[in-house]
């Protein structure tokens, strides 16, 4: 009574458009490396899988699907829903024994984030993209910023408001160093860009803003809207060139990924900007004595390693260095490897399409923080802070951005708002 495939309904990736054929051809070896070993060590570190406990949502399933596609057993339509369930945090890639044991010698890393993004691009191509993502990206395309405040009447969306957060800070437009402010920070949690700007001003780091800053395009790329992502990238790069920028300060981890991975992929060698991650810069300013943290902060905190810094980019020392430099703080650390299995659920478009899963991931993250008996969870990713703060309010733990703490310790009244 085994279920046998019907030969006349077999899926042929070659007959389903060039993109599909290229997808299977490009990712089959990577998929097979997972399929053939089948360890599934990724499963228990995957933030989505930890919540849904549905094996379809495990990275091994993402790879096995490709093997099945190559065999002609399943189509993009069959597998599309699986790939919605991913925050693109990268934990699976790190925990994969194939990465751990052959990474150094064979220069191998099991690629799962790129696979998810490529599959989502296929879904867009075939009209299988999810409705909430369609709406989100259509509005982003119209506004040139993500609709992070919703689109009700009177919401300060769009280009005319993109620099509202900087009111009164006297920041020039243009210059060699540009501070790029992502949509969530520019519109929703404006305390972060305000804090960042004043920290840089206090430390004497010259910087300016873009003439016309569009969304970085990263979220569109994460959800599969590659053309839109690229169009936004082209606009932003043109703006940078027009003002003579040489370096870009990314104050947010998703932007940092996009500027260091996607933009170079879009533009090749002509992308010659230096991209600076804000925490590494701030740690350096503190180390060099250019930024003094002298005002004690009486809090008991733990640090949430943002996935894109820790798991995707290996940036976990700088934030800890900064936290240890803040006077008065009691810092209860959880090491960055343990945090491979932590996440806020805030990435990869998950909160837009599966808000209930994102919320549960954050709830579990706050549960881990609560065990440490802290009063504050410090993150360094604005996108994580909305779901984390919602979960934190239920357990009496405040969620702050590291930059907000740094500003306070430096005696800066950042202003702006910390969320809605």
């Amino acid at each position, binding site marked *: *009574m*085994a*279920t*046998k*495939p019907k030969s006349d309904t077999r899926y042929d990736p070659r007959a389903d458009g060039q993109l599909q054929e290229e997808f299977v051809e490009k990712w089959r*070896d990577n998929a*097979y*490396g997972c*399929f*053939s*070993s*089948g*360890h*599934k*060590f990724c*499963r*228990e570190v995957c933030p989505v899988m930890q919540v849904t*406990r*549905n*094996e*379809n949502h*495990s990275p*091994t*399933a993402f790879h*096995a*699907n490709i*093997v*099945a596609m190559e*065999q002609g*057993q*399943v189509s993009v339509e*069959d*597998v599309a*829903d*699986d790939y919605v369930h991913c925050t693109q945090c990268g934990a699976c890639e790190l*925990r994969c*024994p*194939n990465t*751990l*044991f*052959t990474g*150094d*010698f*064979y220069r*191998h890393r099991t690629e799962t984030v790129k696979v998810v993004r490529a599959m989502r691009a296929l879904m867009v191509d075939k009209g299988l993209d999810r409705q909430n993502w369609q709406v989100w990206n259509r509005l982003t395309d119209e506004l040139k910023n993500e609709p992070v405040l919703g689109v009700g009447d009177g919401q300060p969306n769009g280009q005319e408001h993109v620099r509202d957060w900087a009111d009164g800070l006297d920041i020039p437009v243009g210059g060699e160093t540009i501070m790029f402010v992502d949509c969530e920070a520019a519109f929703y949690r404006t305390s972060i860009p305000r804090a960042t700007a004043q920290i840089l001003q206090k430390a004497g780091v010259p910087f300016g803003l873009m003439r016309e800053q569009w969304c970085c395009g990263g979220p569109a790329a994460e959800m599969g809207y590659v053309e839109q992502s690229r169009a936004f990238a082209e606009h932003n790069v043109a703006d940078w060139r027009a003002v003579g920028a040489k370096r870009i300060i990314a104050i947010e981890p998703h932007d940092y990924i996009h500027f260091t991975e996607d933009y170079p992929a879009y533009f090749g060698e002509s992308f010659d900007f230096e991209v600076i991650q804000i925490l590494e810069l701030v740690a350096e300013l503190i180390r060099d004595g250019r930024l003094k943290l002298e005002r004690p902060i009486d809090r008991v905190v733990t640090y949430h390693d943002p996935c894109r810094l820790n798991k995707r980019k290996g940036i976990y020392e700088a934030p800890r260095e900064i936290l240890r430099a803040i006077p008065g703080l009691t810092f209860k650390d959880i090491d960055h490897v*343990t945090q491979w299995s932590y996440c806020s659920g805030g990435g990869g478009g998950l909160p837009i399409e599966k808000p209930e899963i994102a919320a549960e991931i954050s709830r579990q993250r706050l549960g881990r923080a609560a*065990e440490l008996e802290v009063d504050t969870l410090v993150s360094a990713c604005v996108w994580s802070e909305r779901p984390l703060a919602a979960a934190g309010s239920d357990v009496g733990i405040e969620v702050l951005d590291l930059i907000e703490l740094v500003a306070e310790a430096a005696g800066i009244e950042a202003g702006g708002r910390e969320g809605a």
Partner: protein
Amino acid sequence: MVTALDESVVEELGGILGDDDGVLTNVTSRAMRARVPAPFPVHRWFEYMPQVVVLPRTAEQVSEIVKFANRHRIPVVPRAGGTGLADGAVPLRGGIMVDIKRMSEIKEIDLVNRTVTVGPGINMLKLNEQLRKHGVMYPDDPASYPCSLVGGRIGTGGWSLLGARYGHTRDLVVSMQVVLPTGEIVDIGDGGGRKLRKSSTGLNLKQLFTGHQGTLGITTEATLELVPRAECEFAAFFAFDDYMKAHLTTGTLARSGLATLAGVVLFDERKLAYLRRDDEAYIPQPDWVVSAVAATLYGTRAEVEPASKRVMELGRSAGGKYVGDEISWGDWASRHDRYATPLHGRLPSGEVVPMCWHCEDAALTYSELPKVREEWHAIVQRYIDEYGIFDDWGMFAYTNGAYKPWGDYLVEIDVGIWEEKLNDETWAGWVNLKREIAEVSLRHGGSITACHGATRVGDAELVPTEMGTAWEVVKRVKRALDPNNIMNPGKQMLDQAYVSTDGEGSG
């Protein structure tokens, strides 16, 4: 039995699980649960699919599902992590797959009586993350420690890398709740108490429900042993220029009587050659090293420190050379990750191809290890020469007894398979290879599997032979508990339980 997915089946299951997205019928949901880590004939993957997958949250739901399946004679296959190495959770006849991953809660931590009660869908590493703050651990530590789940460990009768010290899965389950193939929920322990380690009341049923490969029921809750978190860990690796010296040293260490001994491992020349493929920098051992022995200790500092000195003496007593702290600690620390990697596969020509990994495991007595090693390698070499898609990744032997590690060993030969080239002919070759390996084990008085289970073709046919005069008892038990042969049917030749001696079916 149903022969096609009947919509009323899905409806009925939906009614049992309620509004919980817990009934899955789409092709990927079923295909993902028809695969395991070890190779199966990938070209026949879609022949072994469940027809429907359920994700229950409670024992009552499992009970209702199984009662329903039993009424309608629908096969039921339980699945936990799906990390088993012998296709135990792969449905041979379709049916309902009961995926228990959602039953993953920690229900009680009893630090006074030293037990933890969990759902079967929890992973040991995740459990130990929660136990750590209490200074205790659940010491079931297979190579699949980061991914396998408690329920699967019970179903397969798992083996632990720390078994010599703390026991294996069956020794670590104090009691459990099981849904029988007829749907009743029963409590199984030593006698009647949920937290008792030893009783003489009634029959001891606990072992019957550990290692049955999902053929006698579904564990829905387990009360597990808590041991003090080891204050001290020690690992030492010794290098040898001769396998027999290493074999002698393995026996010497295993018989040492050190109570904190957690395990002794013997690696042979082919295994070292395989490990050297990793990275020459990682195993910087000179060419004369053709065998290695590892010994590990777990316990309190007061015990482990003096014992470690004894291990160092014994490890060197027959010419062993200590390889140093870095390799010893590094290799032991990576014991879970160094499972197998497909990127180390080599064709006879030396060409690197992505290979999947399969390990044949057996239980064998100490005295038989050298001879079995020779025979196994010779068999694998014959098949390498004949088919050109296999690769010998070497052997190891690991102390097998719980608490008494001196007598017998889990012995494995790891074989790489260029799985993409599998077809009916090469698959048949692989099955014959497996069977020859298993026959050697039986000839030497061993068991064809110490831990993976004899659930795959090649091994399964030999189960009645190995069980010998006890096979009749096994069949009677199976038929008594599962009168309609719905629970993971087709595994381990248990269909024979439903065939009368004159050959007529009676089930």
